[in-house]
């Protein structure tokens, strides 16, 4: 049985005009994996997560969590999930311990169980030492970890986190990634949304790229990267025209004085680097990144 499954999920928001946020999304998330919804702003990631977490009614289609219908059995679904919403803030007067403790009580734990769960969760996110500090005195990363701990303390089977690292610095982001991977190691299922490519590539077991309400690619980060016919990128700084690459049909993208040339194999990439260096240009090559493939797939790139 899948941890989460959606079939032909449609969501239309009606205000002044109808906006189709999800256009028939089919996604299956396996138990025990970290699955990422990757997409630009407005792709439908949050809408999908809010429907799955019983916060929003879909317009059409079905969604199931551990086999429970999110429409017909929301209370069953809620017993098995914990959610960290997008742009979640904290109450300044709350401490991380109070967040985790009270949220555990709301999950139905006894006071003793809640205390134990809160301690475990705060230790997991390395906030135990700061447990009695009010949230107003914590850094942005610490506040975010406090919220994650409050979800973590629930001991739910499935965690749904909507852009949990947005606004965090690199160190805080990596701390959160470590916590997420640790949760997966413990057998939890995680549904994550992000528009940060590095995050999706680093933490996901599998991911789906969403664009304008549609799932346009699904697989492991490596599988997604294989979707591009060009496997390598060469970054050249200087006058690219002297290399004759545009004429030979290579895909070239310009950023100021830098050019990115996409090529099919490593030999071709090394050949370009060699030629560029001989002509006195700066050049380096690397395999294509998830971001390269993502930009190509969502069509936001100027060739």
């Amino acid at each position, binding site marked *: 049985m899948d941890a989460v499954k959606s079939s032909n999920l449609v969501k239309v928001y009606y205000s002044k005009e109808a906006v189709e946020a999800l256009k028939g999304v089919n996604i299956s998330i396996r138990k025990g994996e970290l699955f990422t919804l990757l997409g630009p702003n407005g792709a439908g990631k949050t809408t999908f997560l809010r429907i799955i977490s019983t916060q929003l009614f879909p317009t059409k289609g079905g969604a199931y969590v551990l086999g429970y219908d999110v429409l017909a059995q929301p209370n069953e679904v809620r017993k098995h999930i914990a959610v960290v919403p*997008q742009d*979640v803030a904290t109450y300044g007067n709350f401490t991380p311990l109070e967040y985790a403790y009270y949220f555990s009580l709301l999950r139905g734990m006894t006071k003793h169980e809640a205390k134990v769960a809160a301690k475990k969760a705060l230790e997991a996110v390395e906030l135990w030492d700061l447990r009695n500090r009010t949230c107003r005195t914590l850094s942005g990363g610490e506040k975010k970890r406090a919220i994650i701990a409050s979800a973590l303390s629930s001991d739910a089977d499935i965690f749904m986190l909507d852009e949990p690292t947005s606004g965090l610095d690199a160190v805080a982001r990596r701390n959160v990634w470590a916590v997420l991977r640790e949760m997966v190691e413990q057998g939890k299922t995680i549904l994550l949304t992000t528009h940060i490519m590095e995050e999706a590539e680093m933490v996901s077991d599998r991911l789906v790229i969403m664009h304008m309400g549609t799932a346009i690619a699904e697989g492991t980060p490596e599988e997604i990267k294989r979707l591009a016919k060009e496997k390598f990128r060469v970054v050249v700084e200087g006058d690219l025209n002297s290399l004759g690459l545009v004429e030979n049909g290579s895909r070239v993208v310009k950023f100021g004085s830098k050019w990115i040339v996409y090529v099919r194999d490593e030999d071709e990439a090394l050949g370009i680097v060699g030629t560029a260096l001989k002509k006195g240009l700066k050049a380096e090559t690397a395999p294509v990144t998830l971001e390269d493939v993502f930009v190509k797939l969502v069509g936001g790139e100027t060739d």
Partner: protein
Amino acid sequence: MNLKVVKDVLVITALKSLPDLKRQPLVMFLVGMISSLPLYFIIVFGADISYGLIGAMVSTISFIGMNAAIQDIAWDRYVKIREMIVAMPVHPIAYAMGIALAPLMISAPSLIFFVAVTMWLGVLTLSSLLWAAVSLILCWAALSSVGFLISTYLKKASPYTLNNLANILGIGLGFIPPVYYPEEMLGSFSWIAAVFPTSNTASLIRVYSGSLSLPFEMVVMRWLILVATTIVFAVLTISKARWREN
């Protein structure tokens, strides 16, 4: 209502009140101080202090009920705690009751103070206190429901807008109708007192304190209006408030 719902009401009440009480204890005097303001003028101008004390009790309840319901829900949405709780096995009624009870707990010292002074001065006896308590509870329930309703209909309003609206309504309902002054001052418009839960409650408490004399049928009518107002707003809240959004 099962045990889990009762437990969740208590947890949400604690969650929404204890951290504030612990770290900003002055908050417990805030509503009471605002409600006491007219009392000073009543004392200075030598008017009957019982009007001021009863007014302060009702106006405290008015602030607690409606104002707090709007503000708390707005801020819960703003900081997204509400989204986290929606996705938990928590009944919406438990959430609503917890949200409504928390400010009552925060302002309880002020309320207890007013009740104590009222009894000390002999404005209320032990038996009339019982009727006063019932009417205050109904007033609190009615105004909390109004607060929830407003919050439900103004889902897209910012917390700041809702804050301002809550303050305007709180002051309006507490100070404009005959809450601090006798309804007889309105002359042929004294029926207005029955329309608002705040002034209706104040009039009923005055009846039991002996400072207002109404025919028995009129007292029954006032109770019926207060109960009906509470039921209507509560039913509207339950039918209109949705845990899951469309």
